[in-house]
């Protein structure tokens, strides 16, 4: 296996060198002569008759339908590239992808959840696409999309939409409990929020907080609850991504997550087993991402409000980044793969996927034109959070995969009533051991 890999790497290096020479000799039409060598293998030429496989995680049904239509539209729109869609169940997506990477069979176009792409960038199972992206497209992308896709000086992944995380509640529930909706300028503190939950409970909501416990241990925990770490003044990893010690287990984080644990201990969080706590009126607040906007809006209409997460002491923080496209390292013609990705970034497709997912379209021009995200729109909060530095990217490092697993385990243990400091110390130990085992994750090509 190793032999095959190194052979393939050698081939790729050869192809890169050849591309660089061609680009250099071509001169005139391309003034960034060394772009091919530094930014990926795109040469702007799509070979006719190329077949590509597009892999998408089988999660929310509306999204799957939208992607299916996208692939069909793509095939109908041109005849050079034929895309075939492959769906992999979301629950075991990470495991499937790890297996594909190990057998060097990562599809041509593959989606990964936010920072999870970089493990595969590092292991040379993805290829950089920096020079595939035309400047006009790049400058129109949300800054958060570019930031979430960049690692080791290259862009490896591009999302069709960015995520938004907040709390959904209703005007009538707030009124019933005698509360006013918090805003980004005047958010609830953690103590105020705990107090609000108790008021909701007193007002008849038996399990006032829905934390989507039914999603179970997985990326949701990292995405949904890492903001508590950031808002408490801690971090998942140090700035240089070398250690979690003193960051994830900082005293302020222990304090923040102890408050989080108290919501469970005080019976304020429902188990949401059938995912209906909020719509059935058992819960007054649902702490979840953009993807629940459509079903909630359908149920509550204009009664629905989206409010920011509570402030644990260092300002409101929220997550960013969502599923994003990458290009497999074994892809013979990355231009063909990029042609598909670019198709998904076209305004028509952007509108379709944004409508299906509730996510923020990756292109500023499309997002601005959507009344949901415009000033005064229901989801304006999500746009504001990205614009004002409230949203924090998950660490863009190959170590993130381990960070996420260890943090998810710690959150699960904390939910189950374990000692908060002990759980975080254990996560730190796992993360630091992994970083050490992998030689500090040296940047690719060093």
């Amino acid at each position, binding site marked *: 296996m190793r032999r095959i890999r190194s052979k393939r790497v050698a081939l790729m290096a050869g192809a890169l060198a050849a591309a660089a020479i061609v680009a250099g000799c071509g001169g005139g039409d391309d003034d960034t002569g060394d772009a091919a060598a530094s930014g990926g293998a795109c040469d702007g030429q799509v070979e006719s008759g190329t077949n590509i496989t597009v892999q998408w995680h089988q999660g929310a049904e509306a999204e799957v339908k939208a992607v299916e239509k996208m692939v069909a539209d793509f095939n109908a729109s041109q005849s050079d590239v034929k895309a075939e869609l492959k769906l992999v169940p979301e629950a075991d997506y990470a495991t499937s992808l*790890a297996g594909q990477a190990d057998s060097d069979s990562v599809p041509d176009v593959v989606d990964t959840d936010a920072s999870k792409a970089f*493990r595969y960038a*590092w292991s040379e199972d993805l290829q950089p696409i920096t020079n595939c992206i035309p400047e006009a497209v790049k400058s129109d992308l949300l800054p958060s999309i570019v930031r979430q896709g960049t690692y080791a000086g290259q862009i490896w992944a591009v999302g069709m939409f960015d995520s938004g995380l907040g709390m959904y509640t209703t005007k009538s529930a707030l009124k019933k409990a005698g509360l006013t909706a918090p805003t980004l300028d005047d958010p609830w503190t953690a103590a105020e929020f705990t107090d609000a939950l108790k008021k909701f409970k007193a007002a008849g909501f038996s399990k006032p907080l829905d934390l989507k416990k039914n999603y179970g*241990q997985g990326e949701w925990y990292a995405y949904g609850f890492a903001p508590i770490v950031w808002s408490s003044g801690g971090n998942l990893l140090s700035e240089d991504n070398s250690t979690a010690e003193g960051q994830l287990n900082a005293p302020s984080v222990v304090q923040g997550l102890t408050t989080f644990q108290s919501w469970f201990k005080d019976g304020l969080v429902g*188990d949401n087993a059938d995912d209906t706590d909020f719509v059935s009126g058992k819960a007054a607040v649902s702490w979840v991402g953009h993807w629940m906007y459509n079903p909630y809006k359908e149920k509550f209409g204009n009664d629905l409000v989206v409010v920011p997460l509570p402030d644990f002491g260092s300002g409101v923080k929220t997550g960013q980044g969502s599923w994003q496209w990458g290009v497999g390292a074994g892809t013979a013609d990355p231009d063909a793969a990029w042609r598909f990705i670019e198709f998904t970034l076209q305004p028509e497709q952007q509108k379709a996927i944004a409508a299906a997912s509730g996510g923020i379209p990756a292109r500023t021009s499309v997002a601005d034109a959507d009344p949901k995200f415009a000033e005064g729109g229901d989801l304006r909060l999500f746009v504001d959070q990205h614009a004002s530095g409230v949203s924090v990217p998950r660490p863009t490092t190959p170590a993130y995969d381990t960070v996420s697993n260890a943090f998810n385990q710690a959150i699960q*243990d904390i939910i189950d009533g374990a000692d908060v400091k002990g759980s975080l110390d254990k996560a730190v130990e796992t993360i630091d051991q*992994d970083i050490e085992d*992998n*030689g500090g994750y040296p940047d*690719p090509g060093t």
Partner: protein
Amino acid sequence: MTTRALGVRSRLRGGRLGNELWGILYTLPGLILLGIFLIAPFVLAIYLSFTNQRLASPLPVEWVGFDNYSRILGDSDFWNAFKNNMIFAAVVVPVQTALALWMATLVNQKLRGVKAYRAIYFLPVVTVLTVTAVVWFLLFSPDSGLVNGFLDLVTFGTVQPGWLDSTSTALLAIIIMSVWQGAGFQMIILLAGLQDIPQELYEAASIDGATKRQQFLYVTLPQLRNTLIFVITVTLILAFRLFDQVWATTRGGPLGATDTMMVQLVNTGYERKLIAQASAIAVVFFVVVLTLTLIQRVLLKENRD
């Protein structure tokens, strides 16, 4: 010269050598498949367990000796998983075997529609384990599940366990769903064993004045000895392989209450991408199951006459 040549030819055609050759040829497809899918991966696992092979890593693979083993054996999580496996097996093997035997004797009677009962008892076995687990997961839901709803009704709300959410009851919940799912399989094997027992033995016993209970103890059980040993061995091995139910419901939680060696293996190999360390778990797992099976074979000798 001629006779010797003839001798060789006849041996090749139908003699001993010919038979051996054909024998080897006939077993070859099976041996090749076993070799590729059983023996090779196993040998590879032993080899990998002494390296630091990782999934999705560009770093060179190095020989690390017994590092993986010392990491596993020094890991309290692994011992916790091992303990859970032992408890699970210690409960499931006797309970499931007894239940299966009871069900088998029930459906071994000459009753109208007995085949329908057999089919009903066997139904959980043909259901996909993951589906069973998800259904039980909903049944066990502390807030809205049917199990607690029923308990609420008969105990007036005094008994409301947290089932899969609680460290004290999660393993029990897994045991209940596993026994419910697995007993039908043992029932069918035991049923076949029961039907092999000659009817005359029961007739002779009843002429001697043996009660139903005595007939069961002194005719049925001794006659079922080999079948029971087979069933117990298979149940033990399956019990150690406990994975699907846990993965589909608790993933080892809460706080490791339902963690098993298989869950540890998958977590280590795929989630943490430490394939070498996972291989070491596989080797330890194999040694544990082999030891227990050998002990069992010494204690329960089959009757081969």
